């Protein structure tokens, strides 16, 4: 086999791995409740593919080939484990193998169940996002650890612990009951959005890893949308992320300088992404069931409108924040409301909204101090403004944001 043929085989393995990883892990683990072994089995199957496909050619149905190989590997893995309980999933797996999988390539898509398992309330909420990134998208622990700013060893251990809990605690691969669904779906959406947020914050304009994580989050949301096309909040989340994604090129000046949203050059925003976001927002609103992500997307939609009208409807943003506070009165929403109120009704109104927040809660919340500093400055309260700027600068993690605040502080 020539070098280029070998390369294309490698690419075939990579492509199948990327497109089918989550489906295969979900299918294998939904039958066994053992996510860890399902992943190990699939890794073995991928290694086997890299060894045999260059020699024998890429099979007609690569996904079915991987599933059959992973299934065998799974059985071997469990057989070699000296734990009494472990024999049960294997037996079940042996029982359910109906016929040669290469002949029946169709297998059910269990990724939705896997997403619900990853965000199960019995799992540490801090692990919801890492679990999804690993089990559904196949990201390795080292890369997830990098995004979460902890050591790869620690992340690896936490992931193993979470998967052991899934296997042993009796968490089932099933869609939650109707009355639990909204809350359980929220946890899934939160976890996807957290991945996006990390990718976003981490980006700093140049960091390729951060950018990847934001893209992975959007991909994950698209998977969810495919599986739950009727859920308004899923459309809302997709709309929100696409609106943010559309502004990627405008977030930094040519010199890497931070550019606040209201000062971004909207010609740099991606029109196709904004249009797609609007379609999802429209789809969501047609289902007349409002929610947090739809409201956040609606706020971004108002900002996006500036590309057409040239101005920002701060009143509309303020109203959306009011609704958002009723659903989720987080520090973020309340600070957002204050910033919008300052534009819509004047700096005093914004400052009054900030004053209504508990000083203890906001002591380490950077956006609060940044907004406060700007409003105090606008009101000419210089000593207090300087003080707030110092706090905002001290709490900033992004050096471009720090630089921006230092300049404004004067």
């Amino acid at each position, binding site marked *: 086999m020539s070098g280029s043929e070998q390369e294309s085989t490698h690419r075939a393995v990579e492509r199948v791995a990327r497109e089918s990883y989550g489906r295969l892990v979900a299918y294998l683990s939904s039958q066994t409740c053992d996510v860890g072994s399902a992943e190990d089995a699939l890794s073995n199957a991928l290694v086997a593919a890299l060894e045999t496909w260059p020699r024998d050619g890429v099979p007609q149905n690569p996904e079915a080939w991987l599933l059959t190989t992973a299934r065998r590997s799974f059985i071997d893995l469990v057989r070699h484990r000296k734990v009494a309980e472990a024999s049960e999933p294997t037996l079940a797996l042996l029982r359910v193998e109906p016929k040669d999988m290469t002949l029946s390539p169709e297998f059910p898509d269990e990724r939705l169940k896997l997403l619900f398992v990853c965000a*199960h309330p019995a799992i540490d909420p801090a692990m919801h996002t890492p679990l999804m990134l690993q089990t559904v998208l196949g990201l390795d622990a080292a890369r997830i650890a990098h995004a979460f700013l902890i050591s790869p060893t620690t992340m690896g251990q936490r992931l193993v612990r979470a998967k052991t809990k899934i296997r042993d605690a009796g968490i089932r691969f*099933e869609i939650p009951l109707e009355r639990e669904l909204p809350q359980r779906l929220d946890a899934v959406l939160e976890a996807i959005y957290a991945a996006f947020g990390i990718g976003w914050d981490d980006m700093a304009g140049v960091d390729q890893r951060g950018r990847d994580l934001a893209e992975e989050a959007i991909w994950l949301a698209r998977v969810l949308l495919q599986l739950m096309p009727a859920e308004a909040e899923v459309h809302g989340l997709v709309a929100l992320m696409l609106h943010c994604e559309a502004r990627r090129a405008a977030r930094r000046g040519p010199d890497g300088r931070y550019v606040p949203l209201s000062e971004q050059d909207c010609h740099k925003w991606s029109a196709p992404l904004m249009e797609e976001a609007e379609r999802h927002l429209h789809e969501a609103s047609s289902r007349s069931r409002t929610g947090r992500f739809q409201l956040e997307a609606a706020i971004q939609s108002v900002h996006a409108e500036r590309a057409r009208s040239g101005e920002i409807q701060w009143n509309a943003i303020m109203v959306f924040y009011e609704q958002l506070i009723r659903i989720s009165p987080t520090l973020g929403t309340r600070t957002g409301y204050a910033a919008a109120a300052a534009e819509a009704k004047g700096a005093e109104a914004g400052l009054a909204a900030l004053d209504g927040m508990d000083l203890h809660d906001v002591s380490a919340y950077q956006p609060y101090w940044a907004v406060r500093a700007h409003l105090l400055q606008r009101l000419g309260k210089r000593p207090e403004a300087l003080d707030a700027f110092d706090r905002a600068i001290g709490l900033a993690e992004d050096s471009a944001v720090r630089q921006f605040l230092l300049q404004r502080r004067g």
Partner: protein
Amino acid sequence: MGRFPSVIHLEARQAPQCPQGEKVMQFALLIFESPEAFAARNTDENDPYLGAWRAYYKALVEANIYVGGDPLQPPETGTTVRLKDGKRHVQDGPFADTKEQLGGFTILELPSLDAALEGAARCPAAAIGAVEVRPVSPGFKRQVIG
């Protein structure tokens, strides 16, 4: 009874696909109670806490998910034993010195953690103390009893 009808529907949940679930699993509900709840046990027959427990027990039995369980005497009656260097150390009181103390346990047979959490949420102690849900380990039991 009116408060617990959904316990009866616990068993009607969609059959799980996992192999352990085909045989259903056993979960221990470890019931942690406050000193006030322990004290309430000695009040009269019409105590609402006691009434809630009666209804809860009845609902579990009717739902055919009750395996067994028992309340425990208050933590002050506990005595803790440790063997150090072959020497027996006996200590007055429960193992852990926490506000809420183990007050009893119930074993339920159910298809999934979610079903067990449903059962735990309806336990009268959940409202004033806490209920820890732990799967029973049949694997270790097999190793022990052979």
